[in-house]
């Protein structure tokens, strides 16, 4: 068992796999250790109910970096990303607002609600596109330390400055506003239609413990337009076979480069000798050694669970403790006997609407009220939901004629009043099932037949997310995407460049720049950094 590796990657989520693939591609002998029986982490497909495949956690690809698709030749290894062409929002008054992939169709639809908004929508889109274009290169850049005078850090900051300059003064102010406003305020400057603002604002709260009226939520609005720039690569869509399809393709790519992947291999702790990481110890007591250790776990798990505190500087430990990972999202996956009938869906748009995303975000107020519940430690009684029906996009997800639905839900606070698992003797109904009921009841307001067609329901709370994937507090992005936790601050100042206070220990997960979501940038950039500086 004393076989030695150049690098050991802890965690076989998409970032760990990408990291391993790049290291192996550079000729390194790499081992990936995954705790569960399958790779993918928060990007897995599992047949929870016989014949029905659930994208258990993450369900759409948002920003998978095109350079990764290209460099690792993912299509050759099975990656297929299918279009998810629309977003449909049923409204409280029985009407709907929809956003189609055809520009004119969307314009026509918004015009129906407000001619003014239809024009504003185009202008808004142009502005977002330009800002996204300026900001986007940051996603492929290793953050420098702004307080350091090392040429490397300065260069990276200058690069950043240069991209910002390209924006021009006026757009720079808009970027500034985006960074500091609430999405509700920012959208109010542009639009008057409730359903439009609600649906746009929703993208700003995903994965945060903030409401649409909380400052800092506007920035996330940008992320959607970044995907648009990479349009042809389809950085945005639904992966064939569910989200696990991406992880499978990545694992194939990593193996093709010679990486070894071991499942059912939980790491108990990282072995540190004289301030250097030298290997890992598994739960079963086995010790494995390597010159470089890379953790793809979130910063809290890596530094507070896998390393003895005395190995780390105390201010760093403080930073990591303060690093915010409040979980706020849940997931409900359904096996369905048929298709839901949304009362608002006119026949003419029904099938195309069902093939896209269905957003329960009729107004900003709906979202803010959902947040109000969570603020005081309850799950939302009428939550915000983002639903897709994967079996309509990839028929292989369910038996013929049957369907699966993937429902992302906010808010469900990790620290629920009374806890998610009160002792059964208390006689209280299970909060998990009560949360599931709130989701289905809210959905039934818009699609009354939903209750009749459910064959099986899987309810996942942030507590479950933590149990299964290891994401601390169930935070979907391994740390909130708030401004104080981005770029050179992620996860901690000075240590945003994938290195850590422990020599030869690197991090590459969603808790590093540029953050969460199925993006893979952390995994790739960390590999670059290791190859440039690491012992290897």
């Amino acid at each position, binding site marked *: 068992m004393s076989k030695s590796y150049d690098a050991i990657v802890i965690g076989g989520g998409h970032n760990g796999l990408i990291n391993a693939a790049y290291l192996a591609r550079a000729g390194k002998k790499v081992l990936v250790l995954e705790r569960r029986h399958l790779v993918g982490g928060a990007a897995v497909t599992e047949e929870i109910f016989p014949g029905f495949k659930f994208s258990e956690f993450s369900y759409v690809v948002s920003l998978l970096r*095109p350079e990764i*698709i*290209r460099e690792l030749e*993912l*299509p050759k290894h099975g990656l*297929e990303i*299918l*279009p998810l*062409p629309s977003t449909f929002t049923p409204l409280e008054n029985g009407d709907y607002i929809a956003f189609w*992939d*055809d520009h004119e*169709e969307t314009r026509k639809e918004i015009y129906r609600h407000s001619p003014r908004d239809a024009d504003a929508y185009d202008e808004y889109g142009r502005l977002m596109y330009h800002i996204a*274009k300026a900001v986007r290169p940051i996603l492929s850049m290793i953050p420098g330390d702004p307080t350091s005078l090392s040429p490397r850090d300065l260069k990276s900051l200058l690069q950043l400055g240069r991209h910002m300059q390209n924006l021009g003064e006026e757009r720079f102010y808009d970027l500034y506003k985006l960074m500091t406003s609430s999405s509700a305020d920012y959208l109010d400057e542009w639009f008057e239609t409730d359903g439009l603002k609600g649906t746009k604002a929703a993208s700003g709260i995903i994965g945060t413990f903030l409401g649409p009226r909380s400052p800092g939520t506007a920035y996330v609005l940008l992320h959607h337009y970044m995907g648009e*720039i990479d349009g*042809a*690569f*389809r950085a945005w869509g639904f992966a*064939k076979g569910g989200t696990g399809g991406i992880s499978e393709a990545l694992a194939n790519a990593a193996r093709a480069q010679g990486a070894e992947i071991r499942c059912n291999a939980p790491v108990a702790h990282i072995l540190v000798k004289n301030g250097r990481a030298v290997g890992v110890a598994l739960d079963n007591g086995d010790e494995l050694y390597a010159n470089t250790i890379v953790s793809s776990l979130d910063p809290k798990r890596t530094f507070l669970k896998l390393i003895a505190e005395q190995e780390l500087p105390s201010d760093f430990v403080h930073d990591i403790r303060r690093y915010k990972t409040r979980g706020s999202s849940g997931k409900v996956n359904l096996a369905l006997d048929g298709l839901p009938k949304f009362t608002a869906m006119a026949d003419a748009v029904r099938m*195309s609407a069902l*093939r896209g995303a269905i957003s329960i975000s009729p107004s900003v107020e709906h979202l803010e009220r959902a947040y109000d519940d969570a603020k005081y430690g309850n799950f939302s009684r009428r939550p915000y939901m983002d639903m897709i029906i994967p079996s*309509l996009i*990839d*028929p292989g997800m369910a038996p*013929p*004629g049957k369907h699966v639905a993937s429902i992302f839900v906010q808010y469900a606070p990790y620290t629920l009043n009374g806890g998610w698992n009160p002792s059964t003797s208390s006689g209280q109904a299970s909060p998990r099932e009560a949360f599931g009921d709130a989701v289905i009841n809210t959905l039934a307001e818009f699609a009354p037949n939903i209750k009749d067609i459910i064959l099986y329901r899987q309810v996942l709370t942030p507590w479950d997310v933590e149990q299964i994937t290891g994401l601390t507090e169930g935070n979907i992005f391994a740390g909130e995407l708030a401004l104080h936790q981005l770029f050179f601050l992620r996860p901690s100042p000075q240590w945003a460049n994938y290195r850590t206070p422990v020599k030869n220990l690197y991090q590459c997960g969603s808790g590093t720049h540029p953050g969460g979501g199925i993006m893979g940038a952390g995994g790739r950039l960390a590999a670059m950094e290791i190859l440039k500086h690491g012992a290897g």
Partner: protein
Amino acid sequence: MLQGTPFHPRTAALCQGRNWRRWSKYVVAGSYELSPEREYWAIRNSAALLDVTPLYKYLFSGRDAARVVNRIVTRNVEKCAVHQVMYTPWCNEHGQVLDDGTVARLDENVFRVTSADPNYRWFCENAYGFDVHLQDVSDTTAALALQGPLSREILKQSADANLDALGYFRLTPARLRNIRVTISRTGYTGDLGYEIWCEAQDALALWDTLMEVGDAYGITPTGILALDMARIEAGLILIDKENFVGKRALVQEKQRGFEWQFMGLDVEWESLEEIYARKGLHPQLPMTAWRASTPLYVENKQVGYASSGVWSPLLKKYIALAHLRKPHFEPGYWVDMEVTVEHERQTARARVVKLPFLELERKRK
């Protein structure tokens, strides 16, 4: 005015963008939705239903049918078993390709030949003096292509034939519900797929049955824009045999070494990025296939042309089909392909590759 095919009453109701394309004397849907993307993915991911009626269709029957067909096409039809289908080009006496299509042996002495262009006169001339009856059945035979990984499941649910036993490029007579059809395992997509042939009067019933049964399998009415994308990914095939019109000319050319070869091009992403970046743009990619002859250069000298190209959503590559002059057609060689960026001619580097771009196991399995 161009006419609709026998499926027109159904296809017209579905064609949202009124995006009609002409194909021979008919109009067919370019794409049913405003963008062909979902239809393209149906070919690769579920099942696409295409109206291919506009193909020209000829029936050869009689004692000499095999001899006549064999004289015309370049492949050896004697080797074509009953219920087998062959894809083949045919040439004039100079060895120049006139057209290509499929030859289906429906019975010992009955062949159905399909083609892109009208060939009645050419076929008649070559049949002169033989014991063969030649019929143009283009208008009386309707045809649908059902292409994609779930196409077999749909047919198994609706037809009485043993589709698991039906090999690649084989056909079988069948009844689909009550409709008499022939099902051939053919198509122009490079994927698992079938073509279903019926009498024109049964066309609507055939369409309705397939749509109904296919619903649970994601069946998607698909236009010819998506077909064109899949066709490029699938590349093309060429083979030879003993005696046929134009053989002598072809053999001579082969002895000299082919002057031209038909190859694939893989347009390099980095170089596209570079020529667009000079104009402050991100690469603009052809999301539907283009078919304009496009010059290819090596060191500023033209060495051939690309005949069509497309951004392949599956491979996530810009691919093109090219005719290249000796010696530039070797796989691994590089050429420069003309690309117009903001009204200016630029070139992007492209690597010569073997065809097809996409070889799917399920196509033959």
